[in-house]
């Protein structure tokens, strides 16, 4: 009989895994999701709220894709898993039995036990349901000021989702107060220069950014809904909406109490194997017992979810493959400013690391290079407002190029649209003046660029 692979969760991890299983084998594949019937891009929910797109545009595949590729979809929540009999209990549905089970159940917004965190008008932003809730909690686009349901919102937690939520709410003419615990924006990730740049840009968009402010208590008014919050420093802020965006944690509540080994997430080894036979976990919900060298034990970004899905599909189809994600990369957008990162740039240089920071005079672009002080080996790059070519940087990291090589070959790496002003001479000059290097810029070479994709 055909092997039945069941995947719980139709996010990027689960769906990528299913697609790659189908490329490699004829196994029966079922994806179960309680969130939505079809896969959508979670990162695009903000654009639906802002009216850039409709929800259907966030679906990367047309609805007929699944049947054509013989991927069965079940829209429902899994309530219980029996690992011994290899069956799943689905709320309001039949039992499903599996030969192999993939848990790709994602995560949910953190709530740190604040008083009032479950009041109406308090919410996170992660799932499709969160988007629906946000629509209910706020007023429609274009509502005149005197009829607005929400005059002011408070966002708690200065990370990527927080800044997205701020951008979203501003489009409904809601005033936003943004509470950030650290003394700079996204302080556990961004170095000082970048944090300052983002901070300025957030303020430019009329966000009331409060650094070193922490939420203490959320209060309800007479109607039972949020009326104001108090910060730990005793400040009262009146608001009708509170956005909790202080990170996410694995969505493993429904798995607790069973035989599956859990800590913060589902414990897996480097082959995504859990402690249960034929049960695997990938994506946001997974926690490596031993992380890949230099990486965190939980990786909760789009790209790692996709890489895990690709990799696990090989294992499930008989080619046992270790998680080997290559060089770290990530990207985001802070209002109008794009951000990309390649390799490792930490909030503070680690021992032996040196960095070179360049910022454009208008303060909306910067580049931050990190390299080994002793050898000059290039370690990583943050770039704001300037696009970089992934393949080129990845290749430079692979070949352990030195920092002067990277700077002199910036033209190869630039990925900005045609006709954009290039800042390479300025960057190189700044680098030469700040360090002992004497870098000369090389012209862009397609030969060098293409050798990578050969």
């Amino acid at each position, binding site marked *: 009989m055909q092997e039945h692979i069941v995947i719980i969760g139709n996010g*990027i991890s689960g769906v990528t895994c299913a697609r790659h299983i189908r*490329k490699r084998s004829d196994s029966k594949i079922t994806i179960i999701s309680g969130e939505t019937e079809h896969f959508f*891009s979670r*990162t*695009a929910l903000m*654009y639906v709220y*802002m*009216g*850039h*797109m*409709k929800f259907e*545009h*966030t*679906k*990367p595949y*047309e609805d007929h894709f699944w049947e054509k590729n013989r991927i069965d979809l079940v829209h429902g929540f899994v309530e219980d898993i029996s690992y011994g009999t290899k069956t799943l209990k689905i709320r309001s549905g039949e039992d499903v039995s599996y030969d192999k089970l993939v848990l790709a159940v994602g995560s949910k917004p953190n709530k740190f036990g604040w008083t009032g965190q479950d009041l109406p008008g308090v919410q996170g932003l992660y799932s499709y349901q969160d988007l629906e809730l946000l629509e209910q909690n706020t007023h*429609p*686009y*274009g509502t005149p000021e005197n009829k607005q349901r929400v005059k002011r919102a408070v966002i708690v937690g200065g990370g990527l989702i927080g800044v997205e939520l701020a951008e979203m709410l501003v*489009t409904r003419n809601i005033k936003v107060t943004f509470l950030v615990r650290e003394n700079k924006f996204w302080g556990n990730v961004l170095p000082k220069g970048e944090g300052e740049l983002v901070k300025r*840009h957030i303020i*430019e*968009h009329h966000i009331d950014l409060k650094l070193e402010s922490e939420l203490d208590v959320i209060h309800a008014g007479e109607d039972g809904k949020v009326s104001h919050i108090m910060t730990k420093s005793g400040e009262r802020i009146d608001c009708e909406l509170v956005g909790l965006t202080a990170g996410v944690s694995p969505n493993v509540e429904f798995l607790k109490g069973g035989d599956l080994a859990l800590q913060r997430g589902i414990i897996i080894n480097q082959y995504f194997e859990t402690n249960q036979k034929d049960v695997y976990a990938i994506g946001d919900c997974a926690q490596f017992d031993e992380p890949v060298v230099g990486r965190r034990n939980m990786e909760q970004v*789009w*790209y790692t979810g*996709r*890489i895990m899905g*690709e*990799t696990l599909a*090989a294992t499930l189809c008989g080619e046992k*493959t*270790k998680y*080997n*994600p*290559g060089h770290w*990369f990530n*990207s*985001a*957008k802070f*209002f*109008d400013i*794009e951000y*990309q990162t390649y390799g490792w740039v930490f909030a503070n240089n680690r021992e032996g690391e040196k960095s070179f920071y360049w910022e454009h005079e208008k303060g909306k672009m910067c580049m931050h290079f990190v390299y080994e002080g002793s050898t000059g080996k290039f370690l990583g790059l943050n770039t704001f407002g300037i696009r*970089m*070519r*992934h*393949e080129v940087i*990845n290749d430079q990291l692979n070949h352990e190029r030195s920092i002067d090589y990277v700077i002199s070959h910036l033209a190869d790496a630039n*990925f*900005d*649209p*045609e*006709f*954009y*002003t290039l800042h390479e001479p300025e960057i190189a000059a700044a680098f030469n003046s700040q360090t002992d290097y004497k870098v000369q810029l090389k012209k862009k070479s*397609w030969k060098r*660029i*293409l050798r*990578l994709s*050969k």
Partner: protein
Amino acid sequence: MKKIQLIAITLFAITMVAFVSSLFISGFQVSSETINSHLDSKGMKSEILKERLLNEVSGVEFSNSFSATGKIRSVFIESNAIHEANVAEHRSNKEWDKSNDERQNIAKGNYRDFAYDLMKPSGNGHVHENKGLWLFLTFGLASIASLIFILINLKVLGPAGIKNTGIYFENNTSKGWIAWVTFSFLVLFYIGLYFFPSVIINWTYIVDPVKDIFGGGGASQWFLYGLLYCTAMSIMGIRMIVKYRHNKYQIVRTISVVFFQVVFAFLLVEILPMFGLPGVDLKNAWPLDYDFLFDWNVTNLLANGHFGKFVFVWGISLSLVIIPVMVYFYGKRWYCSWVCGCGGLAETLGDPYRQHSDKTVKAWKFERYIIHFVLLFAVFMTIWTGYTSYQQVYHPDMDYNDKVTLLGISSDTIRSWYGFLIGSVFSGVIGTGFYPIFGNRVWCRFGCPLAAYMGLVQRFKSRFRITTNGGQCISCGNCSTYCEQGIDVRAYAQKGQNIVRSSCVGCGVCAAVCPRGVLKLENGPEFNRISPDNPIVLGNEAFTLNSDITD
């Protein structure tokens, strides 16, 4: 600020109402001299036609263009019907001479142009008498109002960046009633322009003062169209630049496309005849310029000395040499979104509707059938009309029927069907009229034979591609949503594949709206331009699928 914008938009709406009502509030009185001289100049011999026109049209005060057109129409058709009946009767009586004589009485052409020619010199209402005032009330005020609205957006919309907020909430851009009104207006406008020019004759009066700058003689409906086109493109071009002011590619491209429209498609076409030269649009290339080999065009060019011959040779080299070479180096974008008038209107006036293009695989399949069918149609029509032109030039004395007939098919028939179906209905009524509903590139995507031709070059032999930036795609869908050509850009980007599609016009908006810097339009070596169908996106080192061909 927003209040001023509201006032501006209201003012704009009023000017539109004024523009439309100008058709209804200004009348006509056709003089007997106009009738006599027109019949003479056209060699129309019918006494019935003449008499009825003199009795029923001449001296009658028509209150608007509709009633005047209606009257002339019935006289024209009824007169022809009588003559045709007579011809039939003579034939059945085998009175061949009489039948041939009577046949001369049937008026050639159609009543629409006939009515236009009689009415154009005969306007007498408020619009006709106050052309300058109406020019200001419509073109003038509408331009001022739109510019105020657009320039205030510099402040209202905040710092430079992507400005797509509310597109799917705003009435106009999400197929609300404003979109449907705009749709109806555009469709009716094109039907009037192509098929009932006499009905919109008052609009030509409005632009007569502008025509006077170019030697006068009264504006035709085509002059009206050209001026309206240039005005709309210039103003909406400014809007485009304000909207995408953070993106230099969009700024340069928009300036270019507006420049080519205003200078080449309008100013030169008007100015050249002032020096006795044929007024041709030098950038309009066959097969988009489908009448290039029509006999009247060929004979006209060849009769116009060195310049005419230059234009003839230029037209041929443009289509056969310059276009494929340029597409090889830069992709078809150099034409479609940098030079072309149709593309220019789509990129400026049509920009607010770009998201409506259909992205389904079904639409893509349909597109491939229909656009290549139009290309074949254009090629066949050109062979037939080219044959006719050849005979016209080299054997002018040949019998007319022999000149137009090749393999038993008449080139007149083919070209009139092409002109009606493709030239008027597809490119105008559907191509532009349907902007607010089907998106701004319906014609360019499904109908333009030049786009199909360049698409073949772009797909198979070109240095142009949209590069996908390694593994950075988050499948958000902005690129696909805002692709006016209905390309599912994301489908390639999320697989790490470059986008090499024949239909891509290189507008660059996918790369502009991408929130992660994933897409870049560029010209580079052909090597690996079309990425292999590699299942693993960059960033995953667990596989070494391509290791054997690296370094």
